[in-house]
C-alpha cells in the first residue's frame, strides 16, 4: 500500500495546516488511524494518458485464418500489419502503469517505480508523468532505465511522450511518443536484434484516438542486418473507422540504395480490400501494382507490372469501394 507519509517528496497541500494545531492534530489522527487507500480520480487521469497497445494496433477483420491462395498484396498487408503491431509490443508493458497505483504522488505528477526489469537483469525502470495544467491539460511522460544501484544521474531516457485528452472515453485524445535506443545501447543497455537481425534504432509514433477514424503514424528506423553504417526508415500510417474499415500505408526506404516501396491498403469490415504498391528503383523509375481481394482474401483483380511479363487477371469492377479512407 502506498502512503504519502512515507514519500520523500512534497505532499499536496503541505504546510496549509500552519496556525491550526487542532485541525492539524485531527488530520494527523485521521491519517494515522484510518485514512489510506488508492482512491484517486487524478490517478485515473494520469493512467488515461498512457497509450495502450490495443488502441493503436492495426486490425484487419477476419484475419485469423487465411487461405493458401491469399492475394499477394493482402499477404503483404498482413505482413505489414504484423510488423506495425510488433513495433507496438512494448506497449504491453504500459499496462503495468494502468494496473498498479503509482508509487509516488506529487502535485501534478506521478511516479511508478523504480522497479527491476524482469527481462534485463541488473537494470531497473521508472515511469514519470507530469501534467501541465497551463497547456490544455497536456500530460508528459518519461520511461527511464538505469543499472540497479546507481544514482539519480544515471537514469537513461528510453521513451518520452505526451498526451492531450479530449474526453469521450478511455484514452481518447492525441498523443505522441518517441522511443530511442542509441544512447541506451551506448550506455550498456542490451538491445537484441530481431529475427531478421535488424537492430532497433528509433521509433516515433503520433496518434489520435479523439474520434474516428483513429489514426496512427509510426516512423521506425532500423539498422538492417545489424549494419550500424546503414539505416532503414519505415513509415506506417494506419487509420481505422468505427465500423471496422481500415487503411494502412507503408513506405520504406533503403538509405544505402535509395530504393523505396510504398504500399497503400484499404479494407472493409468484411475483410475485402484493395492495395496499391508503388515501387521506385535507384534510377527513379516507378511502377504501380494494384490488387483487390474478396472477404476470403482471394484475389479478384490483379494488375502487376513488376512481373515479367506484366500480369493482369480478374475484373477491376469486383474491387470494393473504399472511398471513406
Amino acid at each position, binding site marked *: 500500500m502506498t502512503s504519502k507519509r512515507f514519500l520523500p517528496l512534497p505532499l499536496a497541500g503541505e504546510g496549509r495546516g500552519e496556525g491550526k494545531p487542532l485541525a492539524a492534530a485531527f488530520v494527523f489522527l485521521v491519517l494515522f488511524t484510518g485514512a489510506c487507500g*488508492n482512491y484517486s480520480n487524478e490517478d485515473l487521469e494520469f493512467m488515461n494518458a498512457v497509450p495502450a497497445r490495443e488502441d493503436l494496433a492495426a486490425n484487419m477483420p477476419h484475419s485469423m485464418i487465411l487461405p493458401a491462395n491469399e492475394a499477394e498484396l493482402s499477404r503483404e498487408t498482413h505482413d505489414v500489419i504484423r510488423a506495425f503491431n510488433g513495433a507496438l509490443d512494448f506497449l504491453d508493458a504500459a499496462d503495468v502503469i494502468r494496473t498498479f497505483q503509482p508509487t509516488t504522488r506529487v502535485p501534478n505528477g506521478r511516479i511508478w517505480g523504480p522497479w527491476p526489469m524482469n527481462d534485463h537483469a541488473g537494470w531497473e525502470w521508472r515511469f514519470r508523468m507530469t501534467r501541465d495544467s497551463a497547456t490544455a491539460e497536456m500530460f508528459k511522460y518519461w520511461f527511464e532505465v538505469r543499472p540497479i544501484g546507481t544514482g539519480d544521474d544515471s537514469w537513461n531516457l528510453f521513451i518520452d511522450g505526451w498526451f492531450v485528452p479530449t474526453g469521450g472515453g478511455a484514452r481518447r485524445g492525441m498523443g505522441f511518443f518517441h522511443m530511442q535506443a542509441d544512447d541506451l545501447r551506448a550506455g550498456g543497455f542490451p538491445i537484441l536484434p530481431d529475427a531478421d537481425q535488424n537492430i532497433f534504432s528509433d521509433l516515433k509514433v503520433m496518434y489520435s484516438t479523439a474520434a474516428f477514424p483513429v489514426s496512427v503514424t509510426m516512423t521506425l528506423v532500423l539498422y538492417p542486418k545489424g549494419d550500424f553504417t546503414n539505416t532503414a526508415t519505415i513509415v506506417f500510417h494506419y487509420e481505422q473507422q468505427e465500423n471496422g474499415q481500415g487503411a494502412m500505408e507503408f513506405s520504406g526506404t533503403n538509405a544505402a540504395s535509395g530504393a523505396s516501396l510504398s504500399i497503400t491498403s484499404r479494407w472493409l469490415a468484411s475483410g475485402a480490400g484493395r492495395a496499391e504498391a508503388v515501387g521506385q528503383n535507384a534510377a527513379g523509375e516507378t511502377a504501380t501494382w494494384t490488387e483487390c481481394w474478396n472477404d476470403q482474401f482471394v484475389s479478384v483483380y490483379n494488375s502487376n507490372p513488376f512481373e515479367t511479363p506484366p500480369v493482369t487477371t480478374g475484373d477491376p469492377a469486383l474491387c470494393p469501394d473504399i472511398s471513406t479512407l
Partner: protein
Amino acid sequence: MGRTLTRIVLVALVAVAATATASTARAQGLRRFAIVAGNDTGGGETRALLYASADARKVYDILTRLGGVRPEDATLLTGATASQLLAALVAVEQQAAAAKQRGERTALFFYYSGHAKDGSLRMGETRIPIDGIKARIAASPIDVRSAILDSCKSGAMSGALATRTKGARRAPAFEIQADGPRDAKGVVILTSSTSDEDSQESDAIGGSYFSHHLASGLLGGADKSGDGRVTLFEAYAYAYDRTVADTAESAAGAQHPTFSYDLAGNGDLVLTDVAVRHEGVYFPREAPSGVYFLVDGKGFVAAEISKADGVDRRVALAPGHYRVKRRLPDRLRVGDIDVPRGQMVALAEGYLRDAPFSDDPVKGAARVDLTSRWSLGAGATYQSVFAAPSGASLFPPTGMLAVDLSLRNFLRRDWVWSLDIAAGSANGYVNTVGAPFKFSEMSLASSLMVEWPGRVVTPYVGGRLAMLLMGRTFTDESAMYPAQFFSTLSPGLVGGAAFRIMKNTSLVARGRLHYLLYNIDEDRSLGYWELAGMVSYDL
C-alpha cells in the same frame, strides 16, 4: 414505576426553633450550616442511580431558600468522594466553632444521597464506613445535628444511636412540644428505609420516593399545623405516610422511613419557613381535598401535596410556570398557574379543567422503564457528499441498508450509546476520463447521543465516529483501471427523532452531518450528509 436502588440520604439538620412563635429562618442567634451531597455512582457492583444528585440539588435549594441557611454556609457536593465529604464536614465544624466563640448557637443540616453497601457509603469509587460518619456526627461540637440517610437498609444508621436510644422509634408518633427550644442539643437522624429494606426511586416523580416526599413536605405540604413552618417531625410524618403509601404496591415492597434522635432539652425542630419568602401556591381551605401535583416546565413533579378537607396549605414554590394536577378516580383535573416572584398565588378550583388520563402533564409518568435497555434498528439511509460534482465523481450518492444496536441509560440517564453498520452501493462516473464505475461502501460507527424521551416523540442529538470503507471497480474493462479503495475515520453529528408507534416499536427519522478527510490526491476536507428512515425495536 419505582425501582429498587441503593441510596443513602444523610441529612443532618439542626433546626432548633428560637422560640415557639418565631420562624426558624428568623431565629435569633442560631447559625445554620448545611452539607448536602448526592452521588449517582457507587463504584463496582452497583448500578448508577438516576436521581441522587438531583435530589441533593433539590434539598440544597430548599434549605438555602426556605431553611434559613445562608448560601455561604451551605455546601453542595455532587459526585464527591468520601474525602471531599469529610473535608466539607471538617470545614463546617471549624465555621461552627468560630460562630460559637461569637456566642451563636449552631446547627448542622447534613444530607447525603447515594449508594450504601456492606456497611459503607459508596461515593463513586470511594467508601466511608457508616459507623465512621455516625461517630463523626455524634462527636461534632455543633449544638444540634440532623441527618437524613436515604438508601437501601439505611435504617442501620438509626441503629447507630442505639448507644443512646432515646427517642429512637420507627413510627411517626411524636409528642415533642415546642417549649424551651433554646436549650435543645443533640442528634436527630432520619433514614429512608429500615435496616432490611430497599429504598426506591421513581421515574414518574423524578426522584427517590422518600426525598421527593420530604421535599414536598418541606415546601409546605407537611405543615400540618398550618402555621407556615415545617418542623422536622412534620416533615418526617409527611414523608413517612407518603413514602409508605407509594411503595406499598411496588415490586420491591413497602419502604418505611425511620426516625431517631438523641436530644437534650425540649423543642421542635423547624426546618423550613414557608411564609418567609411569601411566594408559591396557596391552597385555600375550601379547595377540594386530594393529592395535588405541581409539575414544572420539564414535566417533573416539583411538589406533591396531600391536602385534607378544611385545611389550607402553602407551598413555597420558586417563581415559574406550573401545571397543577389532581387525580380523580375517572379523570384528571388539570390547570396552569404562574407563580410570580414574591407572590403567593391562590389556587381556585376554577383554574382546573377535566382532562383524560392520557393528558397527564407528568411526563415522567410516561417513562415506563428507565433501566438500561437495548434496542435494535434496521432501515435505509441515503448519503451524499457536499462537494458535488467533483465530490460525487469520487463518492457518488449512495443508498445503504443499515442496522444499529443501541444501549440506553447505561452510561447516564437518557444517554444512548449506539453501534451501527451500513452497506450500500451506487454507480458513478469519472467525467474527466469517461470512466463508469461501481461504488460500494461499508461504514462501522459508534455514536453517543442524548435523547429527550417523550410520550410519542423522542428527539435526540449526539456525536458519531465512523470508519468508512469505500471501494470502486471500473466497469469499462478496456480502461484497465485497477480497483480502488479508501478508508478513513469520519467524525460527525447526528440528530433525529423516534416516533413510538407501538409499545416497543418506533419509527426513526435521522440526519447526519459528517466530516470526511480525503487525502489521496490532495488533502481535501469534504463533508457529507445522510438521511435515514428506520424501524427500532426495544429488546
